């Protein structure tokens, strides 16, 4: 536990990728396999769920501190993080946390789920009394399940690749999908034998950076595959061992949510993996994203929903073909195999080959991009011909070139505290637009301001709170922000009657008075430009 807490401190102490990888590699080099497995488990953001209600955690910490509850509350208000507040409140522990990470997790943490309160309390007090505040912080984080250290799966992958001498792709593959943090897993993870891909395991997704430069710098468009960027759920459809798996980019297995796509599995050859976008689709065109959301939101799918929001997979790429990993083959080769496959399956409303955009020049592409909204897409993907299918977000071969976002000026009306690094600041905002002399909540946004601006807004919120509802503060309607967002739809679940996608703060309009913010009417006028529904291009 001590070594793991030290690793956490080392990761927390630097923003430099190379130093983080070095700290991780140093840990994995010396950690016993079981510890390494658990460390990977936590570092890649997996969590032990439902160990303990946070009310109990607070109750026992408060008792142990000997302080009144209100004062503990004040401390939380200043620190903004449960695990950290409790770690700092209690006097330094005497003994330190001897014993391995896996011991602590397996003999103390996991049993918390099933033990009675008296025993759970004893486990916590014993741990707190032994640990110093750094160890206690990490321990509390494991309990609350909010273990974040600014380490991406990518960095963990790099560190393990460095320690094991196995290439990153293979490690990344081993880390995907379902696995248990056991000794065997650790052995497999570090193994030099790379013929191990589990049957259900997806490949790491290749992701794109937004393109902001001059397109001419990319060279002639003939060197690129220009595709529409569809607005759905990025997925991998896997057919292996006579079974079918549909994985989302968020590494969720969603096969059962999309029976019509799962049904395609039987039509694919053994050992096939397709990268594509699941969208709601009918009559040769995408339905609005909200239709797809109806499919994600529920456990059981009624015949009605299946009929109203049928799903299709728009196929982008072929990663595995006849049981062979073909990611290193050039893009054109993979596209050609994919086209053959789509044709063979012949399910035109279910499996669609992502159509290239008809643009012979960048000028023409720019013109087409203006139509993107009407087509129900988010812009373009630019993929360099000849390129392999890479792991993660790498610059150079893949770019996303999105349409200009919508923009609306609105007024800050509610604020809530952020999480992680910003846990003690008010960083989560709700914005309103005018409707008949009143501000109606219109969108929430969490990002877009720099640190200095966030501090200024935070100070404003604290000084101008009108009301508090739990963690939410109503503030004086005074600050105006320009919000940018990607899509807009009618919604019965929102007070304003409107839902927007990916809202973010474009800039702080310090030059505008709240009266000058936009009205609901002007916002509704944007609705006309949205995806136009079935039947149209």
């Amino acid at each position, binding site marked *: 536990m001590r070594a793991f807490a030290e690793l956490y401190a080392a990761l927390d102490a630097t923003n430099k990728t190379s130093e983080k990888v070095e700290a991780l590699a140093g840990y994995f080099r010396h950690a016993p396999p079981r510890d390494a497995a658990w460390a990977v488990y936590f570092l890649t953001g997996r969590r032990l769920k439902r160990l303990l209600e946070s009310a109990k955690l607070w109750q026992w910490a408060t008792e142990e501190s000997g302080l009144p509850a209100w004062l503990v509350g004040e401390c939380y208000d200043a620190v903004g993080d449960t695990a950290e507040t409790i770690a700092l409140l209690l006097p330094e522990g005497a003994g330190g946390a001897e014993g391995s990470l896996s011991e602590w997790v397996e003999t103390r943490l996991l049993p918390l789920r099933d033990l009675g309160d008296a025993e759970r309390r004893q486990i916590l007090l014993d741990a707190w009394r032994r640990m110093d505040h750094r160890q206690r912080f990490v321990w509390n984080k494991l309990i609350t399940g909010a273990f974040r250290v600014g380490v991406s799966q990518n960095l963990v992958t790099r560190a393990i690749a460095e320690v094991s001498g196995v290439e990153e792709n293979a490690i990344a593959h081993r880390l995907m999908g379902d696995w248990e943090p056991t000794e065997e897993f650790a052995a497999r993870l570090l193994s030099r034998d790379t013929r191990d891909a589990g049957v259900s395991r997806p490949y790491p997704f290749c992701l794109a950076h937004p393109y902001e430069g001059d397109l001419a710098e990319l060279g002639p468009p003939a060197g690129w595959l220009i595709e529409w960027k569809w607005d759905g759920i990025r997925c991998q459809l896997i057919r292996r061992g006579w079974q079918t798996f549909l994985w989302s980019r968020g590494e969720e297995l969603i096969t059962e949510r999309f029976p019509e796509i799962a049904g395609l599995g039987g039509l694919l050859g053994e050992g096939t993996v397709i990268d594509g976008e699941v969208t709601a689709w009918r009559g040769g065109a995408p339905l609005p994203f909200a239709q797809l959301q109806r499919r994600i939101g529920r456990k059981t799918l009624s015949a009605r929903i299946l009929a109203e929001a049928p799903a299709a997979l728009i196929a982008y790429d072929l990663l595995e073909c006849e049981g062979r990993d073909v990611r290193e083959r050039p893009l054109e080769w993979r596209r050609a195999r994919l086209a053959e496959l789509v044709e063979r399956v012949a399910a035109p409303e279910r499996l669609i080959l992502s159509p290239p955009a008809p643009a012979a020049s960048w000028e023409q592409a720019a013109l087409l991009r203006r139509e993107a909204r009407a087509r129900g897409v988010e812009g373009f993907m630019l993929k360099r011909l000849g390129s392999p299918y890479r792991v993660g977000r790498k610059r150079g071969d893949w770019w996303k070139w999105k349409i200009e976002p919508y923009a609306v000026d609105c007024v800050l009306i509610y604020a809530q505290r952020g999480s992680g690094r910003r*846990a*003690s600041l008010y960083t989560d905002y709700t914005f309103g637009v005018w409707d008949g002399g009143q501000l109606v909540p219109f969108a929430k946004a969490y990002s877009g301001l720099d640190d200095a601006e966030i501090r200024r807004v935070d*100070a404003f919120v604290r000084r101008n709170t009108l009301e508090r509802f739990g963690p939410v503060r109503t503030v004086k309607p005074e600050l105006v922000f320009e919000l940018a967002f990607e899509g807009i739809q009618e919604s019965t679940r929102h007070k304003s009657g409107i839902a927007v996608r990916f809202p973010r703060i474009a800039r702080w309009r310090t030059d505008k008075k709240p009266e000058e913010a936009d009205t609901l009417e002007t916002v509704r006028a944007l609705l006309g430009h949205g995806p136009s529904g079935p039947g149209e291009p």
Partner: protein
Amino acid sequence: MITLTDRGLYCEAGDFFIDPWGPAGCAVITHAHADHARDGSGLYVTSREGAGVLAARLLPGAVIDPLAYGEVRVRKGVRISLHPAGHILGSAQVRVEHQGEVWVVSGDYKVEADATCAAFEPLRCHTFVTESTFGLPVYRWPRQQEVFGEIDAWWRGNQAKGKASVLFAYALGKAQRVLAGLRPDTGPVYLHGAVARMTALYRDAGVPLPPAAWAGTEAEARREDMARALVLAPPSAAGTPWLRRFGNLSTGFASGWMRIRGTRRRQAVDRGFVLSDHADWPGLLSAIRETGAETVWVTHGYRAPLVRWLTEQGLRARAVDARFEGETAESAPEEAAP
């Protein structure tokens, strides 16, 4: 005997202010930090140890009446004396006695020992005016030897990687305390101009400090040893082009606020060192207890929680506004700070 006016704490019987917020006739100054010492008063009473630093921080020509610690000045029958507060060089608690009633105004203080200033002296009084910069139980300081050890380990680690170590610390007080705690054989130490000026005043006052050169001249002349050096700079130098001269570097910040992870990360420094010139929560409580005071005024910081806590302990406590907040978690205004 002392009231809060629109210019700060005022003793009517003796006709003087303590750390007034603006020009006053007679100003008794606890210490030279900008949130306590403002320009424009007719006469400044301050400790003899602190007189040099105060003169340097005020406009030229200020009239300063230096008082030895413990020495009594009588103004209109009111006995005024200054006693070490342990905060920075020359920092003082102000003891005011009139017709048998005793008040002590702490200014900023810490109870932990500090090689660069006289140790905090507990005083008995009827009313104690205390600061509360770190008045929450999450603020507990590690032992300073431990922190100096961490700084040294960080410095050596940077040397091994060929990086300069730039440590941000408030130019008046903190920087000199850190300097005194560094291990001189680890490597050369350089100072930012603002730190160098204050350090010279400390040396003038006879505080023993290890050698350290102004980064302005020598750093450029002897660039080859920068990768082994530790540079002390005010927090305001963070993120400025001034840092470029040191090449590849690692940054650290020495402050009590570094106790909280969120504040540490928002400062965007590589390392935070928990080192404060203010009392932590146990320090505040023990200092208040030792005064024996039945009435406590709380200023400067986490006033409300400390007032409520003291009230629940059976004391009469009230919050007193401060016009100029000192060190806050979010602003790290350079010298003006602590």
